[in-house]
């Protein structure tokens, strides 16, 4: 799917590699996870616990909690408040969290 946003190509910022649902993404260092996903073609970054509706970052300032993702095994992190780090593993969250998934997160 075509990306909704792009980062300033002229800016010679150093880049880092993060993984979103296993796929590597090269993104400028200093971006937040939510910004990096929006600029890398991600559309829905989670589905809701109640109706499994697709959602994506909305406010980008820590208020709306639409950008919740799993980061390095920890669920429900605010992507818009977390800066990317090289090697970061980001996963989308789908529907209701289960104890199994939580246990797997703890085991990691």
């Amino acid at each position, binding site marked *: 799917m*075509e*990306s*909704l*946003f*792009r*980062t*300033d190509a*002229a*800016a010679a*910022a150093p880049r880092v590699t993060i993984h979103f649902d296993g796929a590597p993404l090269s993104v*400028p260092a*200093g*971006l*937040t996870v939510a*910004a990096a996903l*929006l*600029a890398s073609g991600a*559309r*829905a*970054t989670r589905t*809701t616990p*109640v*109706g499994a*509706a*697709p*959602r*994506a*970052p*909305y*406010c*980008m*300032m*820590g*208020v*709306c*909690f*639409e950008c*919740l993702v799993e980061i390095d095994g*920890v669920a*429900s992190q605010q992507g*818009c*408040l977390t*800066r990317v780090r090289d090697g970061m593993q980001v996963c989308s969250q789908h529907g209701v969290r289960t104890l199994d998934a939580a246990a797997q997160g703890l085991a990691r």
Partner: protein
Amino acid sequence: MTPDLYDIAIVGAGPAGLAAATLAAAQRARVVLLDEQPGPGGQIYRAITEGGASRVDVLGPDYAAGADIVRAFVASGARYEPNASVWQVSTEQAPHHTVRYTREGRSLALHAKRLILATGAMERPFPVPGWTLPGVLTAGAAQILLKSAGTTPAVPVVLAGCGPLLYLLGWQYLRAGVPIAAIVDTTSAEDYRRAFAHLGGALGSLPALAKGLRYLRALKRAGMPFHRGARALAVEGDTAARALTFELDGRRQRIDASLVLLHQGVVPHSHFAWSLRAPHRWDDAQLCWRPVTDAWGELDVRGVFVAGDAAGIGGAQAAAEQGRLAALGALASVGAIDAARRDALAGPPRAALAKRLRVRPFLDALYRPNDEHRVPADDTVTVCRCEEVSAGELREVVRLGAPGPNQAKAFTRCGMGPCQGRLCGLTVTELIARERGLEPSRIGHYRIRPPLKPLTIGELAGTQGDAADAAAAQART
């Protein structure tokens, strides 16, 4: 370990918090400033210390002005805690206040004699059909992206709603060469008539007015498709935004768009004041709650002050003046300065604040969001995004007898998700008010309780400072 005790703890590093910290530190008070973001500036001056000259040029002179206020803060000697997510402010250990926050997965606590809440503003909710779809963001979000590595739309974008920020963003996109499919403005001829009554006061703020007109003129001169007086906005799409539709002169219009940026003004982010049970009043001009304060910004909760947009929308420049006034009030109340010195120092910020606020009645009247975009007439529209509660479900529980937001919450779970009612609180109050034929002031707001940000049990268990308190308490018994 003795927990840190400060004279003044400030939450929020936007213009109000930065100005408050700078002034208080200059009077030799022990000051700490906590902020959720990694760098100072708040949302308005976000990443001001990181952007290159070209980005500052795109964002314009108002943004560039933030560099001075940040520089003064950095030089002030106040302690700065970035990446600090404050989840509780409390007066339980009176006379001192406790601030609890998480930082990099650890929970910490500090104590202060006085608190200044400078938590700023957030986008007003825009509950229309399709506002939850991927591809729909707030204009504020888009501006935050612009301030982060110059992130801009890669597809033709539609800007919809009303208010200075929407036109400013359009102007910034124009300068950045971003393709704008259309600007869909909900401001109507009626709004202009209403605002005209306040023009006299606004003339005292000519530069602010001229600036807005300059943005609009530049957008029109660039040949931007500009639809004025749009009503009944709706975003079309199944799994992502596909188009924006709206009514213009009674006819339905449709613009293809996979990226729609919504904005209808900003409202105080005052969850902290609510959590302290501070009295609020409904502001019918700004259509939001404002915490009740005295002339220094002190709440009806002793020793806690509110400054900047968190106390009512006045804009960045007014916020800095309010920050200074709150700092003076706090300094005098801890005895760091006497009342005479406080009053002498307050002269210039008070005069500047009055000047900055003169334009507000005009702006509030001109950009008053439409009723239909605040309280959806369509029962299927989602009001609470977290728990997916629709306008129809809320109306149903009001008919069943729920008199206010807290009862509606118990029936439907509205406001119980991770955002804790930030994105639905105003809509729920206004919707219930309309259903019951009462003023919003009679309906009230959700009861807000800590933690104000979600935290893990592990973070809670490991709170430093609190652990020391507990050990000390145990040793005493």
